[in-house]
C-alpha cells in the first residue's frame, strides 16, 4: 500500500501552505501598506499610482526584478553579518562600518594592484573586503571577549569611526586627482569590476551571497563548530563548563560576520559604484540588522525579508523619479513594515537580535 500522498495532494498541500503563508503576509503587512498609502495621500500623491509604479518597476519587469536582486545582494550579506554573531548572542549593529572598511580595503587593492589580470585581482579584492570588514568587527569581538565593552555599543560607535575614516581617505590619500574636488576615489579598472549576468546589473556577488547563506546553514547544523556555537547560544554557562572556548568563538564569529559585511562593501564598490564614495551605503548595515532580526537568523526567512526590503528600497528610488518625492520616503514604508512585525511578535523569552 502506498503511504505517500499522491502528487496532486502534495501539490494541494503545498498550495495550501503557500496560500496560508500569503494570507499571513497580507494580514501582517497589509496595515503597513495602508498607512503608507494614507501618508502619501496626505502628501498630495496618488497612492495607487505610487504602488503601481513600484510594482511595475520591480516585480513586473525582468529588468526591474534584476534591480531588486541587485539591492538584495548587499542586504543578504549584511544580514548574515548580523545573523552569524547572533547565534551566540552577540549583537552586531556595526554592519555599516564593517561594510565601509571592507570597501576601503578593496579600494586600496583595486588601485594599487590595478595591473593584475581579472581572474587574480577579483579574488584578492574579495579577500581584502572580507579581511577589512572582519578585522573591524573582530576589534569589537576582542573588546567583548575581554569583558571590557559590550559589542552592541562598540560596533555601533565604530560605524561612525569607519565612515569618518573612509571620508578621510576619500578626501585625502585616495582622492581621485581627476575628479576636481569631488570626494571620491579613482575609478576602478575593468579588471577590478565584478562580472554581471545577462546584461543586467546583477553581479557575481549574488553567487557569493547565496553561497555564504548555504554554508552558514550547513555549518550550523552539521559541523562540530555549529554544534558548539549552538551550545554557546543555548546556555553559555554550560558551554563554558564543557570546555568550549567562548572567547575564541566570540572573536572568530565577529570576524566572520564582519567579513560578510566587508564582502558586501567590496561588491558594492566593485560592481555597482566603480569607485569609493562616502555615500556608498544607504544604510545597508542597519537594514541588514533588521532583516536578520525579522527572520530570527534563519536563512530562508532572511531571503524573504531581504526581498521585501529590497523592493521597498528600490521603491524609494522609483518614487523619487516618478512622484518627485524625497528618496528617503521609502524609509517610512520600511519603518511601518517593521512596526508591524515588532508589534505582533510574541516575545518568547530570549529572542535574539538576529
Amino acid at each position, binding site marked *: 500500500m502506498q503511504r505517500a500522498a499522491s502528487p496532486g495532494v502534495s501539490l494541494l498541500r503545498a498550495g495550501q501552505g503557500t496560500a496560508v503563508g500569503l494570507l499571513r503576509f497580507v494580514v501582517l503587512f497589509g496595515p503597513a501598506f495602508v498607512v503608507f498609502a494614507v501618508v502619501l495621500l496626505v502628501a498630495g500623491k496618488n497612492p495607487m499610482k505610487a504602488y503601481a509604479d513600484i510594482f511595475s518597476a520591480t516585480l513586473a519587469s525582468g529588468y526591474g526584478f534584476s534591480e531588486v536582486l541587485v539591492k538584495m545582494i548587499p542586504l543578504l550579506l549584511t544580514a548574515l553579518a548580523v545573523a552569524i554573531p547572533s547565534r551566540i548572542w552577540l549583537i552586531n549593529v556595526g554592519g555599516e562600518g564593517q561594510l565601509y572598511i571592507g570597501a576601503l580595503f578593496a579600494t586600496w587593492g583595486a588601485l594599487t594592484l590595478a595591473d593584475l589580470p581579472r581572474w587574480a585581482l577579483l579574488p584578492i579584492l574579495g579577500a581584502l573586503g572580507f579581511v577589512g570588514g572582519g578585522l573591524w568587527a573582530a576589534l569589537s569581538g576582542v573588546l567583548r571577549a575581554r569583558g571590557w565593552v559590550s559589542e552592541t555599543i562598540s560596533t555601533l560607535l565604530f560605524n561612525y569611526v569607519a565612515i569618518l575614516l573612509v571620508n578621510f581617505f576619500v578626501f585625502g590619500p585616495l582622492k581621485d586627482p581627476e575628479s576636481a574636488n569631488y570626494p571620491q576615489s579613482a575609478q576602478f579598472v575593468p579588471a577590478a569590476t565584478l562580472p554581471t549576468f545577462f546584461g543586467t546589473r546583477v553581479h557575481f556577488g549574488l553567487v557569493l551571497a547565496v553561497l555564504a547563506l548555504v554554508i552558514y546553514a550547513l555549518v550550523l547544523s552539521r559541523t562540530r563548530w555549529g554544534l*558548539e556555537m*549552538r*551550545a554557546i547560544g543555548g*546556555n553559555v554557562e*554550560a*558551554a563554558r*563548563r*564543557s*570546555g568550549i572556548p567562548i572567547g575564541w568563538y566570540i572573536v572568530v564569529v565577529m570576524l566572520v560576520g564582519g567579513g560578510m559585511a566587508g564582502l558586501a562593501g567590496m561588491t558594492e564598490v566593485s560592481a555597482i559604484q566603480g569607485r569609493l564614495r562616502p555615500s556608498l551605503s544607504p544604510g545597508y548595515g542597519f537594514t541588514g540588522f533588521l532583516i536578520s532580526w525579522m527572520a530570527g537568523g534563519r536563512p530562508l526567512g532572511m531571503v524573504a525579508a531581504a526581498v521585501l526590503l529590497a523592493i521597498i528600497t528600490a521603491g524609494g528610488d522609483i518614487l523619487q523619479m516618478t512622484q518627485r518625492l524625497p528618496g528617503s520616503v521609502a524609509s517610512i514604508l520600511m519603518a511601518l513594515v517593521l512596526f508591524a512585525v515588532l508589534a505582533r511578535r510574541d516575545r518568547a523569552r530570549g529572542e535574539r537580535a538576529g
Partner: protein
Amino acid sequence: MRPPQPEPMVTMRGITKSFPGVLANDHVDLDVRGGEVHALLGENGAGKSTLMKVLYGFYRADSGEIRLRGHPAHIRSPRDARELRIGMVFQNFTLIPGMTVAENIALFLPHLPALLDKGEIAARIQEVSRRYGLNVDPSAEVRQLSIGEQQKVEVLKLLLADAQVLILDEPTRVLAPHEIEALFQVFTNLRRDGYAVIFITHKLHEVLACADRITVMRRGRVAATLARGEATEGGLVSLMFGTVPAEPRFYRSAPAGETAAPLLELRQVSTRGEGASPSLHGIDLAILPGEIVGVAGVSGNGQRELGDVVLGLERCSRGTKRLFGHDATRWSVARIRASGLAYIPEDPLAMAVVPALTVRENMALGDTPKYARHGGFSMDWASVRTDIARTAERIALNLPPLEAVAGTLSGGNLQRVVIIREMARRPRLIIAFYPTRGLDVLSATATRELLLAARGEGAGVLLISEDLGELFALSDRLVVLYRGRIAGTFRPQQTTMNAVGFLMTGSPDAHAASG
C-alpha cells in the same frame, strides 16, 4: 509575652492554583493569628511558596477566598497585599544592588513624599532596626552587604512599610547557624508586638525551634495543622512524606592508601574574587584515588569557586594545582576535562545542559573533539549513541529519550543526562555539587550509590554538599570551607556534626568543640 490572639489575622479557604501541568495548591485552608510564628513546612514542590505568593498577590488563585482580620480581601497584585499590610521576603531578594539601603527601603514605603527627605528616612530605619535587632547602615550600598545583612534589609522594608503580616520564604537557606539564631530572636521580638510571622521551610529542626503553630503541606494539599506542643520529629516527617523513610545508611570504608599518588593536589591556591564573590585563600587540598572528600560549608563560602578552580574555569592568582601528576595550573577547561575530570554542577539546567539542544546533542558536548570527524566538518552521531547506551547500562540509570529537547525534561531527568554524560568518559576525578539537592528520595539514593561505585573503581570524588548527614555518610575525609579558607579537615568518625557546624560559621568555639 502576649499570647496569640484567638481570631485569625489571615484566613485562607479553599485556595486552588494550578499551572500548566501542575496543581500547586489544591483546596488549601490556612489560618494565621496575630502575635504568632506560623511555620509552613513541606518538601520541595509541596506548594508552600505558591500559597504564599497567592497571599501576596504575586499569583491569583483559581478559586478560594482570603479574609484579612475578618474582612474579605481581594488581592490582585502585590500592591493590594501591601495595602492590606502583608509583606513578603522572597528567596531571591528584591533588592537593588546598585542603590543604598535607605533607597531600597524608601522604594517600599507606603506614603513616600514626592520630595525625598533622606535624613528622616534614615532616622526611621535606625529606630526600627534597634527595636527588633536588625542593624544595618542606611547609607551602605546593598551590593556591599553580606547575605545575612541583605535579609535584614528585606525585613526592615516590610516593617517600615507598615506590614503586619510578614511572610518569609526559606529565610535560613543562606544563613549560618548563628545568623539563624539571630533571626529567630527577631521573630520573638516581632511576636511580642503582635505581628504575624509566616515562614516557609523544609527544615524540621527550625520549625521545632521557633514555631508556635505548624502547617504541613504535601503535594499541594494541607497534610495537617498542629500546635508546637503536638508536633514530634517523626510525626512531622511522616506528614511531610506520607511514609516513614528508611534509616539513612552509613557507608564506612577503609581509608585510602596514603602512599598512592594524589589525583588532585591544590597547594596554597588562592583566587581573586570578582565583586561580591568570595575568593579562595591558601587552599591545600588533596584527593587520593578511591577517596571521597566531602566539602562542608554554608553556600557562598567559596564552594563554587573551588569547583571552578579545579575545573580550570577560574585562574589561581597564587598557588599550584596538580592533576593526575601534572602541573595543571594553566590548563584550559577542555584540557582538564579531557584528562579525566567529570563535573556535576549544582544546577544542571543552568550550568550543564543546553536547553535548546536535544539530549543526544547535549551528550556529545561532553567530548566534542572525540566525536568530530573530518576536522570538525561533521559529527559521528552513531558513536555518541553507542557510548551513551553503554554508559547508561553500566551505571544502571535510565536514559531519557535521546531526541527529546533537553529543556522539556524534569529536574531528575536532567540530572541523569548530566551524570550519564560525565560518567561516559570513565572519569578519574569527579566533582559533584549538591548532587542530591532537589531530587526525590529514590533518585538521591541512586546518585549516592553511583558516587560510591565510582570510588570503588578507584576514582576520586570531591563532594560538595549542604547536607551534613550526606557528607558524614559518604565522605572518607571531610573538609570545612569558611570564607574561602579551609577551616578544618577531619575523618567523619572522629568528629561531630555540631563541631563541623561551628567551623562552618567560623565560631571561635570551634577549637574547643572539635577536640
